[in-house]
């Protein structure tokens, strides 16, 4: 009988207080507490962070890369969402 697979987890680490948790990689673990312990050993051996999140990989919902263009192109022609779209005379100073 083939061995049951140990679930996969995605690991997020916050490098220091005030920063976002950032995805750093994945690992296999039987449950959440083992995933946290393994994440500490695998991804923070040199003070890379002070907080870890683990999320079951199967729970991640991702946008479809093959429809990436249609998904994101509505923002492409909206230059008026950027500050540089508006002309303000230099005399007004920094704004």
């Amino acid at each position, binding site marked *: 009988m083939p061995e049951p697979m140990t679930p996969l987890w*995605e690991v997020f680490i916050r490098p220091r207080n005030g920063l976002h948790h950032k995805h750093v990689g*994945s690992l296999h673990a039987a*449950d959440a507490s083992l995933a946290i312990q393994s994440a500490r050993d695998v991804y923070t051996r040199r003070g890379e962070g002070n907080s870890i999140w683990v999320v079951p*990989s199967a729970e991640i919902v991702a946008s479809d890369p093959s429809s990436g263009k249609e998904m994101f192109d509505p923002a492409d022609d909206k230059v008026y969402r950027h500050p540089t779209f508006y002309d303000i005379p230099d005399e007004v100073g920094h704004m």
Partner: protein
Amino acid sequence: MYSQGLIGADSRTEETQEFLDAFQARIDAEEKIEPNDPMPEGYRRTLVRQIGQHAHSEIVGMLPEGNWITRAPTLKRKIALIAKVQDEGGHGLYLYSAAETLGVSREQMTEELLSGKAKYSSIFNYPTPTWADIGAIGWLVDGAAIMNQIPLCRCSFGPYARAMIRVCKEESFHQRQGYEIMMQLAHGSKAQKDMAQDALNRWWWPSLMMFGPHDADSEHGDQSMAWKIKRFSNDALRQKFIDATVPQAEFIGLTMPDPDLKWNEDRGSYDHGPIDWDEFWRVVKGGGRMNRDRITARKKAWDDGAWVREAALAHAEKRAARKVAAE
């Protein structure tokens, strides 16, 4: 990463010339390829093979050095060696994760290593009989690995490139601690210096073989270069390694075991003697001193750990069931 969703999925692609051209255009534009992007089946297979082999090398590579943890000469050397071996384990895990994004499972890769179907770097099939071997491995074997791995940080496959960036950051300590061991031995008693030279004599040629066959004989080179999995040819990287390490040996008064080694003023590089490729292929095909021991050790670790994996999964199931019951 999207690995879980991809495992077992049919990743075959319609490989029309149009598809291949579009893929190549993305590669040529230096776009990173991510796991769920369309890719030629050959690209996927090459990466599974290469990343898997790389991961296995990290894990098997823990064995020759682990051999000396209990016998390291000082506490300083011992903690450094433990940290290094632990790093190699971590590197293996980063790489297995990268390979898994391509739809191959960890269990499958482990099975292929244990059955001998998957290869690992043949350098680890040499024994480590003396403490100086630990110095030579750090300096030369990790040094050669760094030469190979730095260009891989720019590999076209995103997860592999990202794993390599982490690995390269950590690898530099490995090489420095190895060279420091060699330096200390080379400056020690006659017996210590002889031990250092003996280790260099045994590790030099296998280290040069780590870069793989000459370009003319390399079966996967051209396509890998076109797909930007590989950025430099085997011979170019090997030459870079020789040019970097020969002065390092001279600095500590050791001599490379190659009577033909000499500086070539015109090329601005060292010329070297012929590499014994028969030995290389013999070791790759299982004829090295340690091939059998390495796989036996990995198999024992896997089998002895079976009850831990089972218990952890059973515990997780029990806790999950208890939580459902309480809700």
